[in-house]
């Protein structure tokens, strides 16, 4: 039996797709979600087993398609269906090897973030941080003469932020969040109270009590998070598994599978997994009439079917690399040689991340890391200010997981003191210990470890872009090619971040252990600071944005503020790819707010009852 014409076809079962699907379904609309990856599982046994038994616990590890073959070698993405990038291909030896790196990285610098292609999307491995952007984030061009303005302001998005906070279940304290002009209606309370701060947070707060940077006093603020501080949505309160990335074993951290299942519960949503959309089809009148998709059964197996579905409305929600790539490869037999929805030429351009500066140290006193959520607080004072005329703003995330992120601890330190090595830099004498001496060494070092991660605002630049590579995946679909670099504005922000971190450590009496990257690290840049040549390494934050930016002018943007394509009235291109700038807040809450606003637009206009 052939498919009906759906009210809406949504490409991607991640945050954006799930949110829009649910809202449309609640309004009685008939929705089909096409998801490239595999089903949301019945339980997390398999995810957790994969996580526990992996010796490299990066964010992608619990999920599929598999990264490694039986011999522990990275699988060639050419052989995989719906392959995804991994942070394991950011080494000098493999970042430009298409047999290892799914993304075809053309440089000059490495794009350092990854994403998932699976039911629930990248949201399966997110940290949970649910910050709102600050009012000036939406108008940096007007206020600071830098970056770009958004086609809407904080006030426009504020009610949608509240809706997003309810959908996700955000725990935070309104009074503490009212900084940099963030405001709330009188009487508003977040769905749940703030997650209690950690001992690491307390140590940082005590240490920076007298510290000012660029004339700004620094304070520690609890982070709003999609993490339960009490039972919510029939999910448990957080038990501090210290594993938010890559997976919360008890689902105290929200992930989009919750909303997908809500959407399915209405009876109005169908979801087809292992279904990779290969082209968006445009009619002569400019309306999108259908999407084509390919299906597979096994990750390494052949294509098993092909299909096409029609709908009144189409929503692309495949995250900010796959969505623009899909638009660009949709050439409609030559009728849309520049791709669909791309009259502006901006599709794929203005690729942004939050380059993350990581500093780590031993606190003067024990702070007992490896306890609690991965992060409970941050330093938000430098997210906005006049300095944005000169250099990128940033926020500082305080980590509760010791030196796990910087050096893979406790494994590294454990090996060092048993085998007389010094990868951790904590064992300069290369002592090989045992018994009580070993216990003392471990406890005294591990209990003092902490790290700070700084999310720096990257400039939108057209030279940073996603294009279509000639390399393909196992379904014959082109892979994304990436060009990526950091502007001086952003680099200056990273330098300021580095200095801020060192000052914080010094103010705390902590001993800094941050190291310089190697000169062949693809994710670093050389810089001279106070006359001294050095190198700064950046990590990816997993925050991908900008590649189908929204705007007021159809020549300068891909979508309007409702994420509606300028070129095709029934096409919505959604997600953090719509961000004109990436600001300094983690993108999820903002992209969810935009998604809910988009769903509302669709229901008011395109699918009005």
């Amino acid at each position, binding site marked *: 039996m052939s498919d009906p014409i759906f009210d809406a076809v949504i490409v991607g079962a991640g945050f954006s797709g799930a949110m829009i699907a649910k809202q449309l379904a609640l309004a009685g609309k008939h929705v089909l979600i096409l998801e490239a990856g595999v089903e949301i599982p019945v339980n997390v046994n398999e995810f957790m087993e994969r996580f526990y038994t992996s010796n490299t616990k990066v964010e992608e590890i619990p999920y599929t398609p598999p990264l490694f073959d039986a011999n522990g070698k990275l699988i060639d993405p050419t052989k995989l269906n719906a392959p995804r990038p991994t942070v394991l291909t950011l080494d000098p030896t493999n970042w430009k090897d298409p047999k290892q790196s799914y993304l075809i990285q053309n440089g000059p610098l490495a794009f350092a973030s990854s994403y998932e292609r699976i039911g629930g999307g990248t949201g399966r491995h997110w940290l949970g941080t649910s910050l709102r952007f600050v009012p000036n984030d939406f108008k940096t061009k007007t206020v600071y003469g830098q970056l770009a303005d958004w086609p809407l302001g904080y006030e426009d998005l504020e009610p949608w932020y509240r809706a997003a906070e309810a959908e996700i279940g955000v725990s935070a304290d309104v009074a503490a969040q009212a900084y940099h002009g963030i405001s709330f209606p009188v009487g508003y309370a977040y769905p749940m109270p703030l997650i209690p701060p950690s*001992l690491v947070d307390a140590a940082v707060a005590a240490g920076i009590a007298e510290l000012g940077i660029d004339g700004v006093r620094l304070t520690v603020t609890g982070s709003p998070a999609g993490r339960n501080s009490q039972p919510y949505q029939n999910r448990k309160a957080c038990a501090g*598994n210290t594993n938010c990335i890559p997976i919360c074993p008890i689902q105290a951290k929200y992930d989009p599978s919750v909303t997908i299942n809500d959407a399915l519960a209405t009876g109005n949503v169908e979801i087809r997994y292992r279904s990779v959309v290969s082209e968006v089809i445009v009619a002569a009148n400019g309306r999108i009439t259908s999407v084509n998709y390919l299906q597979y059964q096994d990750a390494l197996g052949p294509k098993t079917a092909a299909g096409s579905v029609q709908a009144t409305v189409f929503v692309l929600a495949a995250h900010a690399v796959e969505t623009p790539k899909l638009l660009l490869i949709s050439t409609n037999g030559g009728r849309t040689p520049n791709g669909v929805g791309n009259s502006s030429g901006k599709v794929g351009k203005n690729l942004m991340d939050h380059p993350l500066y990581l500093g780590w140290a031993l606190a003067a006193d024990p702070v007992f890391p490896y*306890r*609690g959520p991965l992060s409970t607080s941050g330093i938000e004072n430098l997210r906005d200010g006049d300095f944005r005329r000169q250099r990128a703003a940033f926020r500082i995330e305080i980590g509760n997981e010791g030196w796990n992120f910087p050096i893979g601890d*406790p494994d590294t330190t*454990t090996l060092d003191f048993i085998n007389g090595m010094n990868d951790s830099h904590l064992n300069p004498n290369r002592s090989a210990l045992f018994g009580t001496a070993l*216990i003392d060494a*471990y406890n005294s070092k*591990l209990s003092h470890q902490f790290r700070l991660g700084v999310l720096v605002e990257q400039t939108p630049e057209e030279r940073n872009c996603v294009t279509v590579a000639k390399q393909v995946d196992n379904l014959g679909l082109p892979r994304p090619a990436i060009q990526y670099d950091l502007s001086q504005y952003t680099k200056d922000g990273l330098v300021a971040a580095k200095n801020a971190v060192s000052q914080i450590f010094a103010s705390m009496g902590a001993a800094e252990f941050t190291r310089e990257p190697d000169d062949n690290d693809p994710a670093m840049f050389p810089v001279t600071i106070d006359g001294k040549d050095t190198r700064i390494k950046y990590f990816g934050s997993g925050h991908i944005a900008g590649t189908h930016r929204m705007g007021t002018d159809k020549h300068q943007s891909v979508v309007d503020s409702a994420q509606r394509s300028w070129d095709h009235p029934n096409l919505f291109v959604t997600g953090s790819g719509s961000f004109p700038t990436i600001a300094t807040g983690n993108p999820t809450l903002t992209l969810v707010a935009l998604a809910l606003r988009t769903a509302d637009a669709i229901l008011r206009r395109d699918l009005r009852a």
Partner: protein
Amino acid sequence: MSDMDNFVKLSAALTGIDPTKLAPSVDPINIKQEFFDKARTEAGPTFSEALTVAGNTPANTLGDVLLNQSGEDLRFLCRSIMLLWFLGQWITPGDLKRYAVPDPPASPIPSLVISSKAYTQGWIWKVAQAHPMGDSNWHFGYWNGPPPSLNDFIGA
């Protein structure tokens, strides 16, 4: 004393963790068996030798005797055993030897998590007064206060 008794004895001497913690008398998890079996499978003859030394040496000198007075084979096997207990990972004695040099290879040392049970029973987390990442039995809000003492975790 049985082979297992000697294995527990040498494990306690090497790791510094009390033997009643490594091998409780009522033990539904019995991780010691998994580590014993792994070491025996990977390094049979050297492992037997280690057990013999353990049987013949007082506990308070056993660590030093095994690691510093019994030759390289025993030294590196014992280090592998220690890593089983602390991390639930098997790193071969041969690889440990290759990396125990002033200028070790740049690539990470090969390692294998032997099971999800072994990872979650790893002792390094308890020595840090914490818990394995991804496996917490603590209650909401616990991170706001201090952990139990080190001795609570590893002592008699």
